């Protein structure tokens, strides 16, 4: 078994998280941009003037009650601004920097894919504030992130480096799904369904933002309905972006790493917390709180992982 230095493991783990974050953020902005196109022009209410601003809440990204922010401002913050933590530009840059310094672990094509993406983002991301070019930039980020997964899946040895990579990916993904469900779904459900026209369109946007629309439809073979969507995104056993699925994959990674008990214990905790909220899945405000709780437990998994594998003396 090829060995993995703790320091290199840390860089690889963060590379995986940043790349997943860049992909998820890109898809989210794309999906909600398309959703807003389908809605009538700005009106008051939860998706009124501040509907782009509401996107910032998903990322926990600063002030959300600032109604003066325009679509362009939000795009700047979430995509373009390289100094803003979590922006697509910053995440891609950090993924590249972490992989530049772990090149010896990955198949060469993987490094090329990320380096290529980073060069593209450096050149083009400034145009993503403009709606006409935004799709091109964001789709490239999503596609390249998945291309990298493909390269690794088909050509990387299943060693510790592979498990650490997957661990980073799934943890970030689980976190992102809880954020979308928490903020968006809770806000939508808190309204009386009759008051919101286009209810189904909103939920389609939520599903699309997590690449889940088609799989949801295949799985439920029914109409798009609030509590079903939330159940699917949180508890599906086999949809690869559901929180439960991500936790199972994380546990599987840990199974193959040595001395993983403390980390697996944190995973068990997060998983039972998740399952315990199945009953509140119908109530918007409670759901929002519940997602915060799950997120704090995912953070515990992250800390346990860092202590055990990513720091010297772990």
């Amino acid at each position: 078994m090829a060995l993995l230095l703790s320091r290199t493991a840390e860089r690889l783990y963060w590379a995986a998280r940043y790349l997943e974050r860049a992909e998820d953020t890109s898809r989210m902005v794309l999906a909600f941009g398309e959703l807003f196109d389908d809605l009538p022009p700005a009106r008051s209410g939860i998706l009124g003037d501040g509907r782009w601003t509401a996107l910032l809440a998903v990322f926990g990204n600063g002030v959300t009650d600032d109604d003066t922010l325009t679509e362009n401002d939000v795009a700047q913050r979430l995509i373009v601004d390289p100094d803003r933590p979590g922006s697509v530009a910053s995440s891609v840059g950090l993924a590249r920097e972490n992989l530049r310094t772990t090149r010896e672990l990955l198949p060469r094509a993987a490094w090329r894919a990320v380096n290529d993406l980073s060069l593209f983002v450096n050149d083009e991301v400034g145009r993503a504030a403009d709606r006409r070019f935004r799709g091109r930039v964001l789709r490239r980020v999503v596609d390249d992130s998945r291309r990298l997964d493909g390269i690794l899946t088909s050509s990387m040895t299943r060693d510790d480096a592979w498990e650490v990579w997957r661990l980073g990916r799934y943890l970030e993904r689980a976190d992102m799904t809880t954020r979308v469900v928490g903020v968006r779904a809770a806000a939508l459900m808190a309204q009386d369904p009759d008051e919101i026209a286009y209810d189904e369109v909103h939920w389609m946007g939520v599903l699309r933002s997590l690449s889940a629309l088609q799989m949801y439809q295949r799985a439920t073979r029914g109409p798009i309905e609030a509590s079903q969507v939330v159940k699917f995104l949180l508890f599906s056993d086999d949809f690869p972006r559901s929180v439960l699925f991500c936790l199972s994959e994380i546990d599987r990674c840990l199974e193959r790493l040595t001395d993983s008990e403390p980390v697996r214990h944190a995973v068990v905790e997060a998983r039972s917390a998740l399952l315990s909220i199945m009953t509140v899945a119908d109530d918007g405000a409670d759901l929002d709180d519940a997602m915060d709780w799950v997120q704090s437990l995912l953070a515990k998994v992250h800390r346990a992982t860092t202590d055990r594998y990513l720091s010297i003396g772990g």
Partner: protein
Amino acid sequence: MDELLDDDGAPRPAARPLYEFLERLGPDELAARQRATELDILTMGITFTVYSDGENIDRAWPFDVIPRIISGREWDGVVAGLQQRLVAINRFIDDLYHDQKIVADGVFPADLLAESVNFRPECVGVDPKYGVWAHISGSDLVRDDDGTMYVLEDNLRVPSGVSYVIENRAVTKRAFPELFEGERIRPVDTYTDELDRLLTSLAPEGVDDPQVAVLTPGIYNSAYFEHSFLAQRMGAELVEGGDLMVGSDDCVYMHTTRGRQRVHVIYRRVDDLFLDPEVFRADSMLGVPGLMRAWTAGNVGIANAPGAGVADDKCVYAWVPDIIRYYLGEEPLIANVPTYRCMYDDEREYVLDHLDELVMKPANESGGYGITIGNRATEEELAACAKEILDDPRNWVAQPILSLSTVPTLVPDPDPPAVGERDGAPPPVLRARHVDLRPFILTGADSYVSDGGLTRVALEEGSLIVNSSQGGGSKDTWIVDDLAHAPAPAPADSVQSQGVD
């Protein structure tokens, strides 16, 4: 002299296929291929790091698509000369750390050794495997006007550049696939296998499957790309000082996700003085406390061995021909550039009288820093240089200004056609630019020399400064075997007799 063209501008024999090919290609297509290689280098992420304004910038590797060509027969002579040189230098280092016979016999001056800043008393009496200290060296070669190859300096500490040799070839193959089909160009790819074999051979006795690690100063080092590249190609771990520790058993371990794991061989790309804060600089954050203990106990192989730098000194350089004669009883197969040693009164006086005809070099700088080129310096610069020589004569040597050979190189057209005469940017033009060459020599139980090496090119007209840290470029170097001189196939009857057996 130009290496590709003779004085009449006609191609030399080894360069003829390339010359004819470039003529058919035409300037626009050539420009397109140069652009394609630059893009290739960018997307492959072939970079080097420069320090500028306190920031580290990861820059694309500068590359010129026109290769430099050396005939195989000439190269074989260079290889023999370099192997001889490094065997002798290693005997010299081993002698200095043991009986110092060469000093006792009056061949190498005792005061020079006494004043050497690169002699490490901590290494006295240590017996590295095969008696070899400088396992990996990169000797810089230059060719003078008359075509003679000279060794300009021996880099025995942490020479870098070999990763770019291999990458330059990969890029050139994509730029000129047509040429590789028809010519016999020696491959350069096998270097990392040879290096791996050498490093593995340095493991402590009795270790079957040694763990090799490349020790880098870190991600901001200018040669980090290379450290990572070599680790990748050898399947070695790329480690920083903080990843390693020396246990109470005087063995070296690295921190991994599976706990502490033993390391048997370290290819260190960290300078001696930073290797072990217990022994050398106590403030070093790059090294590993206790590493020297582990090494002297024979529990880890280190390449290059600590202390090997004693022979990498522009003063010692002047004695290398004597060193070869002393240890091997042979004449040097490859020449030294004549070198004046400022520690000697007569040689120093000659230097001070002829400053404008010489290149003055401080003994312990590398990367082209601190050099004064006599015929290009101002009066003030020469006076300042003279003062520095007088202040510390031991630290200075001087050499005649060689007229480095040139190779045609793509440069921006200095006299572009007027606007409107053509579409788009004018294609670059070919102009003669000075080059040097750094082959890589591996010395262990056996010797190996890379086929060719790193050709660096000064991109400014007339400039002799080739260092990439100072704006130089690089070229692929082809060692080309004449197809007509290929080894003859074995005679038919010997094949038959094998069949009968």
